[in-house]
């Protein structure tokens, strides 16, 4: 006979249980940021209880169990009632049921879902608040009550209907805590809110609450860390694509126009691949590695980086370009004024601003610089790049910011393709503070001139990109 000992796991543990197809796996996928969790409309997709541990290095902060749905709750309840020996022995009767049917295929689902509960896991019972309540749920709720473990009901919303109130009335009969959690649409803050709510299942255990508080703090810090990493990746993407050029020998009788075209295509291909690499990295940090395969469905983001539409959607407007170019030119002109000790009556800055804005506006239609120069050992070489179009870095930045936002906000329970709101993604660079935009424009200029940035300048650009991620 199994002992009556109350089992206390070393860390908070929760079993997510319920009827099949009510979003148990979606809730796990969302909380565990695991896009590999199988989510399917066909019942029986989850066949064994799977453990999802939140670990920081080797320390487990909490553990979730995704369990198969109840299949024969009335038969179990029937068995339990037949073996009842009083309210104080109900948990023990459930243990006996599991022990007796552990090797039977008939009750495999029930045994799988009851095991973690009997091992001390808190119960998170999931129902669908978008569809009507039914009395058939009462058997499984009663079985869960027999386990004697702390229980919370989560009303998930699968569809447009709203039967939350009738569910609440029923659930309140069996659960002390009832919360609504839309697994498909829950953002990061909602996830944290739910984790904090799990503390209520600790029944006053301080270690339980402390572990969950620690988990919340770790997740918040990790979120910031991901944002910092993404900013760093976007910064390096900008540095790479703005500094690259392509060179090839240009014999005297070669078709230079064709050579320019070939080199331009090679350069653009490198840019496209680099952008994809940056996106993959960002998706990996947010645990959305598999999102790429559905990217064909992504409207604006799958648009070619060099397309007119990308430039219209993500680039700066002519006026903004002129203003940013003027600011950059004014700084260059200011150097002349300083050198002249003010004797130029700030004409340097004024002239620089004028030339900068004109260059920015009129250069907007040209993609890259083309140069022909002598090779060290004789002969001529043709160089295409770096890409000098003033709008180009803003297009790259805008696309990267939109991609980051979509990935960061994306819920891991969702399996359909990303839906991109092109308008909300347009001109993300607009949201930058003017000072930051000018600083970034200067950094872009320096990258093109020097082929990169010093460590200090890179840090500054990275900080500006991170600020724009927060704003975007």
């Amino acid at each position, binding site marked *: 006979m199994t002992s009556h000992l109350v089992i206390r796991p070393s860390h908070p543990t929760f079993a997510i249980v319920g*009827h*099949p*197809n009510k979003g148990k796996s979606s809730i796990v996928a969302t909380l*565990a*940021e*695991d896009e*590999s*969790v*199988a989510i*399917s*409309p*066909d*019942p*029986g*997709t989850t*066949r*064994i209880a*799977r*453990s*999802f*541990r*939140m*670990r*920081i290095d080797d320390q487990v902060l909490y553990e979730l169990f*995704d369990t198969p*749905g109840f*299949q*024969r709750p*009335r*038969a179990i309840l*029937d068995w339990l009632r037949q073996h009842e020996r009083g309210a104080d022995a109900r948990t023990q009767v459930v243990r006996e049921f599991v022990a007796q049917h552990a090797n039977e295929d008939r009750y495999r*689902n029930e045994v799988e879902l009851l095991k973690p509960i009997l091992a001390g896991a808190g119960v998170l019972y999931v129902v669908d608040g978008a*569809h*009507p309540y*039914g*009395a*058939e749920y*009462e*058997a499984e709720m009663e079985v869960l009550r027999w386990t004697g473990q702390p229980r919370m009901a989560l009303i998930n919303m699968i*569809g447009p209907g709203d039967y939350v109130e009738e569910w609440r009335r029923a659930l309140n009969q069996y659960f002390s805590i009832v919360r609504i959690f839309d697994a498909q649409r829950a953002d990061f803050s909602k996830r944290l809110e739910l984790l904090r709510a799990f503390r209520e299942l600790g029944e006053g255990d301080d270690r339980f609450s402390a572990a969950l508080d620690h988990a919340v703090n770790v997740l918040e810090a*990790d979120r910031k*860390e991901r944002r910092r*990493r993404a900013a*760093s990746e976007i910064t390096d993407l900008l540095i790479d694509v703005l*500094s690259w*050029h392509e060179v090839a020998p240009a014999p005297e009788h070669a078709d230079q126009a064709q050579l320019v075209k070939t080199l331009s295509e090679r350069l653009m291909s490198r840019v496209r691949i680099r952008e994809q690499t940056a996106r993959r*990295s960002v998706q*990996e*940090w947010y*645990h959305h*590695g598999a999102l790429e395969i559905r990217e064909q469905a992504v409207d604006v983001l799958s648009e070619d980086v060099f397309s007119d539409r990308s430039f219209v959607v993500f680039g700066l407007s002519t006026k903004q370009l002129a203003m940013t170019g003027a600011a950059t030119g004014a700084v260059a002109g200011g150097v002349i004024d300083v050198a002249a000790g003010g004797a130029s009556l700030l004409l340097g800055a004024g002239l620089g601003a004028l030339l900068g804005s004109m260059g920015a506006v009129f250069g907007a239609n040209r993609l890259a610089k083309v140069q022909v120069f002598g*090779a*060290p*050992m004789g002969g001529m070489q043709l160089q295409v790049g770096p890409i000098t179009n003033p709008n180009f870095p803003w297009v790259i930045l805008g696309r990267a910011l939109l991609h980051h936002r979509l990935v960061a906000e994306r819920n891991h329970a969702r399996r359909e393709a990303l839906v991109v709101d092109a308008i909300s993604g347009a001109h993300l660079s607009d949201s930058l503070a003017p000072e930051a935009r000018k600083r970034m424009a200067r950094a872009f200029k320096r990258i093109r001139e*020097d*082929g*990169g*940035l*010093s*460590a200090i300048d890179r840090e500054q650009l990275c900080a500006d990109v991170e600020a724009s991620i927060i704003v975007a």
Partner: protein
Amino acid sequence: MPDSADRNPPLFVDAVEIPACLEADRGTSYAERLHRDRTIAASLSTRNPLGRVRAWHARISRDPESISKPSLGQRLERSRRVIGLLMLIVGALAGVGVASAVFHYDGTWPVNVVTVLAVLVLLQAALVVLSLVLMLPRVPGIRALQDLMGGLNPGAFIAAIYRRIARLDEPRAELLVWPAARGPAVARFARWQMLVWSQIGAVAFNIAALATAAALIAFTDLAFGWSTTLRVNSDDALRITNVLATPWAWFWPDAVPSAALIDSSRFFRLTSASPPAISAETLTGWWPFLLASITAYGLAPRCVLLVLALIRLRAATAHLLLDDPQVKALLDRMSSAEIALGAGDAEPPTQSPGTTARTTPSGVSSQAAAIVWSSAIATDTVNAWSLRNLQKEVTQAVEAGGGRDLQHDAAAVRSIAGGEPSAVLLFVRAWEAPLLDLQDFLEMLRAAVGPACSIVVVPIGAAGIPADEAQRTTWARWVGRIADPALYMESGA
């Protein structure tokens, strides 16, 4: 296990290969990289970033499966050495040639001390100043001069030629040619590398020039004098030589020309004869001064510049490695906590959805008994719904499932079977997943009504609306999976 890079390849090789390794490593998932790098970091005792990165590479390189090892670093390292050797040879040959020219003596006119000083001291001092300008940070104002001098620098020139001859076409080979180098870290490395090569050449030049001069002095009878068109008298010359001799005058007084020597060794070619008034021994009195001058103003500054350039080159190489974004990311991973949220094991393969349900054959009776499962529809509306959507009249309707117990289900089955129907409609909630509980009920029903009776599962939406397509698909698959040849599905849609 030593953390230091004692047995590691040269720093430069690591600076080329580690970023390349990390770039190739991007194919590995971030979680795997984080775990691996955290594990390696935990075993390292050094806190120095350079040491950590190099130790990481030494550890990872031992596992040939983990990362491919590019050999570009070794090729470029070999190229650096070859270029350094070429600079040494070119410098030495130039030193021999120049010294042979300026110390040339055919027994007619003495070696002109002014020429020796101009070529081996003044010109060298000017070149040292230009080297110092190249060593300054790249600030507006002197940038154009630095670019010009970088293009003319023999180190850059020989490196460009070598790159062409050795067919070092890889973009990374820009590290060896300063004018081609792009990016602050790369350009800084290339600049100091160029300066190291040029200082190697210059040191070799001065050593060769000194050796040639010493050999000529030792093995031939050189005579020295001084001659210039400028209005310089002996007193001026004495002042100049005294100033030049300041560095060594205190420990080598014999290398400071005396007034008598200066006065007596001036010559004018207009006289059409070599200086006759002094002895040949006196005429050789200049050589200690000249050798000391070449050493103090040629060799010594170049040695100092070479040491400085080597120190700065090492720092630039370290920056080349540590400023690389991939290396920064590696250090980041090595110091980040490993946060895992997902499952520790892989998702087991899911069952195949199976085939879809059969539709009711046309021969099935237009009358049927009905079972409402889990209150899918109000019993008093079953007949009307069935007539409207399925064109079947319901002769008897019972309820089962839901909140009722199993004994009630058994009674419902007995009631239906008692009427010996040719067809039974089983109304179910379309939005609910079909459970084994229902399957048990179906098996019980089949046993009671016999194999000839058609059982039609009818999924029905909330408030009696027909099931939507997704719901129909789910139920059709479930019905299709049950091995019952007389089990069908209809939805009325």
